[in-house]
């Protein structure tokens, strides 16, 4: 019995198969996993339980119990929207970790240096945060292209496209504000170039740049301003728009198509 190979399929049916029954029988365990969870004792694979896995789960906020068959084909969405969201989650987690070691003051550059040299996993987490930021911009853009090529912005999804454009702008702004934080030559001059573009706004150009930079040029006041935008304001806004975006995907009848 024990040597019998458990097939992957069966694992999926009871993904907690390896756990001891006494653990799964405990009332603590039962209190954590709601009825229908594949982690619960006695979960069996049935259409009813498959529905419960979603319905009795916090993920019910994101997913309906059933989806169109063509929508689960990886080749349709390429999972790009989901991956945009997931990169955002990764960025949130690594970002919060980085906040423990980072001061948006004249110490910023030193803090980044010590992250790279003397803090355990500092270099890895900084790299993850930075590359994930680049990846998110790419993935969101690819998601947008996929939506366009599928004509998935057509009625009734017009407004979700508009929300999507806002999400793209917010993603770029998040990336741009984060760009300044390492406070090195790359950061300050890239942001200066961006700020100069804003200053070419007719009539109010100077004011726009002043508001953005908290002064006439990139200083430590700018650093603080960008920091607050980056770690608090913009994530807050983007989460709200993501919530509306996901909600609209479902209210508009799920994924578009099939083509």
């Amino acid at each position, binding site marked *: 019995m024990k040597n019998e190979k458990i097939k992957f399929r069966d694992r999926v049916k009871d993904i907690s198969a390896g756990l001891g029954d006494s653990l799964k029988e405990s009332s603590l365990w039962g209190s954590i996993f709601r009825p229908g969870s594949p982690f619960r004792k006695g979960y069996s694979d049935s259409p009813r339980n498959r529905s419960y896995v979603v319905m009795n789960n916090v993920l019910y906020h994101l997913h309906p*119990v059933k989806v169109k068959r063509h929508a689960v084909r990886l080749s349709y969405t390429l999972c790009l929207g989901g991956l945009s969201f997931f990169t955002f989650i*990764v960025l949130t987690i690594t970002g919060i970790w980085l906040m423990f070691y980072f001061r948006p003051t004249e110490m910023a550059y030193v803090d980044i240096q010590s992250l790279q040299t003397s803090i355990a996993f500092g270099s890895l987490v900084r*790299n993850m945060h930075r590359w994930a930021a680049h990846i998110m911009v790419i993935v969101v853009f690819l998601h947008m292209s996929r939506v366009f090529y599928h004509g998935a912005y057509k009625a009734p999804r*017009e407004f979700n496209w508009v929300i999507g454009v806002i999400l793209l*702008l917010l993603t770029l702004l998040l990336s741009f504000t984060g760009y300044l934080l390492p406070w*090195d030559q*790359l950061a300050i001059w890239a942001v200066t170039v961006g700020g100069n*573009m804003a200053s070419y706004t007719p009539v109010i150009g100077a004011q726009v740049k002043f508001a953005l930079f908290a002064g006439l040029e990139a200083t430590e006041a700018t650093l603080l301003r960008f920091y607050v935008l980056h770690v608090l304001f913009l994530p807050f806004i983007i989460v709200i728009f993501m919530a509306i975006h996901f909600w609209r995907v479902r209210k508009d009848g799920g994924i578009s198509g099939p083509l």
Partner: protein
Amino acid sequence: MVDIPEHLLIKTAEARAKALGISVEQALAEMKGEVEPTTISKEPEVIDVKPIEVKEAPAPAAEVKEAPAPAAEVKEAPAPAPAAGVKTDVPAEVDFAPETRVTQRLLTVVKAKPIQKPTSEPVDKVNTWPHLMLPEFISLMAMTAFLIFISAILQAPLLEEANPNITPNPAKAPWYFLGLQELLSYWDPQIAGVMIPLIIGVAAFMAIPYIDRNKDNKPSKRKYAIMLWTFFLAGAGTLSLIGILFRGPGWNWTYPWIDGVWFDDLLDWVHFE
């Protein structure tokens, strides 16, 4: 008993009182279970009467007319109710057609068609678990693995500390703005402006679904739209590549293989100089 709001209780009691011909207080008491409920002594014997073995399908009104008995009984029903406050006289409104003593009346004629109209075709659906959640989980894991892998081998750039007095040449925006920077280098920003074209551009993007009135989503039916977007991708890609690889000091044209690359965003680790 569940807490039912008082005003609803009273409304219900009024309806009940009217139907049974008893007082509102009586009905209320009955509903609260304080007194025995008033019962209609016998079921109306409509079933027994079976007035006509529908032969020539007479008009329904006729049928009703021929079933006088039950009505009488209903009317008498309130009488045996013992509780105080019983109204023995039937409210005038109930006796709306005394000559026929109807117990039913025609409210409306519902045509023989389904009440619910299916508006869409049934679609082929599968359970989200495991058919969607498993692929999602796998792509999420793959993404994490990929990210950790590149983070382990690629060091994120960190140049010298920021110094407002030393301007690098060229000063480049983040890579996703380099296409834009390249585009904007073609005109004098003081004259053509920057923000206005940008805002118009963003607005144009948002307006796409409202401009494209073609309802079809088949690629073969929207060749024009697909062509436009592909041009946009090609244009944006080309401009970005020029900005990233082919622009050197003074935003002059440079060849990456001759003059080197000015792109610290990614290439800090293979710096040509």
